[in-house]
């Protein structure tokens, strides 16, 4: 199981996975306060996507993703959430390339 490095990549693949199998796909958010770690996982029991972070700024992205998945799950896989994804990527995006630290 490999962690997806890029958030945009992760979100895109997660949505594709959900649309391919809406009933079999689940989205898990794991938070460990004492270590300040957040792990997001999307899996359909065949493929598995994971994203790991310890940055507060990623919590906002996670919130956006929560909203997308709430919408998709409650309204159906064809639900539109265009306004949430079509936002232009933030300019500081390239800067967070080397986050250096791993564990």
């Amino acid at each position, binding site marked *: 199981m490999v962690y997806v490095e890029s958030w945009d990549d992760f979100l895109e693949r997660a949505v594709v996975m959900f649309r391919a199998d809406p*009933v079999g796909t689940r989205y898990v958010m794991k*938070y460990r306060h004492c270590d300040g770690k957040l792990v997001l996982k999307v899996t359909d029991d065949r493929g598995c996507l994971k994203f790991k972070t310890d*940055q507060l*700024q990623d919590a906002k992205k996670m*919130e956006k993703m*929560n909203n997308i*998945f*709430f919408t998709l799950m409650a309204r159906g896989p064809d639900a539109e959430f265009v306004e949430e994804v079509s936002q232009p990527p933030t300019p500081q995006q390239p800067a967070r390339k080397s986050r*250096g630290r791993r564990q």
Partner: protein
Amino acid sequence: MVLLDADPFLNELTKLYEHNRDSGTVWVTLKRSTLKPHAKRKDEDSAESYRCLVRATDGKKKISASLTLKDHHRFQMAYATVLKAHMDALKKREKKDKKEKKPAAVTKS
């Protein structure tokens, strides 16, 4: 598994996060489900019969809630508030750190 309404679920979720502040992990799972056993599920189940099932656990206690189309929007916002209040162990942006680290990394490699 305790199936709760949206508001009690959020209260319990808050408790879960508070209980696991010093040690422990909290998992929250979202899933699309009809809450029917697999065998009874029919192909013609309309999209409306599906709900968003929200489950949360710390490995000991389990809670869940099932959201309909109507309440998912309100829940979404309340949920975001709960998360914001409890995910305060994450790090603030490390802009200064990064600048210091980057040159160091370059010289290493």
